[in-house]
């Protein structure tokens, strides 16, 4: 069905980076509506650069990237974004509901002391990520996993079609990691949202993924995990011998790319 599998992100021969330095080049791929996509690769390979292009915070050096058949623009309401870094820390004594509420109406000028409707919308977003119990907790007392839920609610509150999640798993233990991934997966499936998630380690994501974008050594490989993450396809792409190893539980490790993070 075209509505189910319509392309919502298309990249054609995109070269990304800065004036003096190309981060990756000749990237062409499509992402369809309702797909759960992992962006993986070594540190500094340009994973966040892809997000910056989609958010319109940075322009491609050449090639075109389109979202819903239009060039990316800053402030696209169709995108919900969870950055890797937040200014929020253990001294931020603001309740969760307020942050989510600002995610909904923080763009508006003027002063209205926030309508009850805003609070209700924010509360519903918290409920959708299973965090309504945390609504009145100050952000300063929340654990890493709880904070990620709040950030997810903040991103979801404006009802976006695309979720960009930058390393949401980085500070979580294995149990929280799995819980958050299940949550994102539920959001993707129940709302037909497209999620792009940057991660260090692909293994916890493998059960949920529709697609993987592997970024390393200035190149991108895109496709189903089974097709992309094989010794043959990666060796062919990079022109150097790369081995993809698999253990008895299906965990994989990518050997041959410097700073490989495929393994546990």
């Amino acid at each position, binding site marked *: 069905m075209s509505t189910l599998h319509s392309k919502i992100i298309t990249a054609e021969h995109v070269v990304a980076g800065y004036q003096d330095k190309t981060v990756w080049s000749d990237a062409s791929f499509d992402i369809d509506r309702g797909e759960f996509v992992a962006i993986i690769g070594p540190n500094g390979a340009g994973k966040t650069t892809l997000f910056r292009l989609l958010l319109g915070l940075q322009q491609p050096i050449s090639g075109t990237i389109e979202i819903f058949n239009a060039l990316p623009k800053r402030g696209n309401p169709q995108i919900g974004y969870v950055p890797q870094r937040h200014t929020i820390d253990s001294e931020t004594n603001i309740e969760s509901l307020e942050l989510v509420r*600002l995610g909904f109406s923080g763009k508006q000028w003027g002063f209205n002391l926030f309508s009850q409707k805003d609070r209700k919308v924010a509360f519903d977003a918290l409920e959708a990520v299973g965090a309504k119990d945390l*609504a009145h907790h100050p952000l300063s007392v929340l654990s890493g996993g709880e904070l990620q839920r709040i950030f997810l609610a903040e991103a979801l509150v404006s009802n976006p079609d695309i979720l960009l999640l930058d390393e949401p798993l980085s500070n979580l233990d294995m149990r929280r990691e799995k819980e958050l991934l299940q949550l994102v997966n539920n959001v993707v499936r129940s709302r037909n949202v497209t999620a792009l998630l940057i991660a260090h380690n692909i293994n916890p994501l493998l059960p949920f993924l529709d697609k993987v974008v592997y970024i390393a050594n200035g190149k991108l490989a895109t496709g189903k995990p089974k097709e992309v993450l094989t010794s043959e396809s990666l060796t062919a792409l990079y022109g150097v011998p790369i081995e993809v190893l698999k253990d008895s539980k299906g965990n994989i490790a990518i050997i041959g790319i410097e700073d490989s993070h495929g393994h546990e």
Partner: protein
Amino acid sequence: MAMNSIPFSINLLADLQKMFQFEFMQHAFEAGTIVAIIAGIVGYFVVLRRSSFAAHALAHIGFAGAAGAVLFGIRPVFGLLLSTSVSGFVMAILGSRAAHRDTQIGIVLAFMLGMGVLFISLYTGYATEAYSILFGEILGISSNDALLTLVAGSIILAAVAVVYRPLLFSSLDEEVAEAKGMPVLLLGIIFMLLVAVAASIAVQVVGVLLIFSLMVTPAATAQRLAKRPQRVIIISVVIALMATWLGLFISFYEPYPVSFFITSIVFVFYLFVRFVYQRIKPKKIYQTNFQ
């Protein structure tokens, strides 16, 4: 001074009436009230954005401006407004992404203090002017100063009302705000200008060196008492007001500087909340609803 000879009685109402017979006390209360409200509000954003050092630096740079104004025979508050606004604007533009912001600010701050010292030494009347800029001289506020304070305070209030939500959001979660297409640089500039104007009028009350007591301590204390921005702001304003009013009242009857009383009162508030209140307050039970 005249006030030292006035005895304090048990009749509070009579004491207040006595105090308000003096015009300088009326002006002091007028200006002090406006400054406390403004500092309490702007201070919340200073604390939220972790910009205490920038606010502190602005006030110090204001010292050079005020001293320069004195030298050229202009009212110090205009020198303050000009120097803090210009430097606030520059800081907002330069520092938006700079990792070493504190160092840069510190370097400029030291230089500007040196300039201030030069201006003061060039001005023959030196010591009292310098003293009042550094430590405040609220009892010397004229009706013109009070009016200017009212105008500046009203502008800040109006500006905060307009930018309230975007400023709050970009202070809290700048990355997301930027991705949402919000003008984070412009908001940063507006914030620094708010701090500049607020600091300029607050200097009259507590002086350049003690600006923290009204711009940071009340908000930092309030942040420990509430977790919704509007409530924190209200508590912050109340603390700043109490300290200013009490400080003025006590100093009318006791021969010590107002700014000493104000700084001590906010400090006691802070200590109480930090070390006593947080131990004795009832265990929090968080509700699960959207109210």
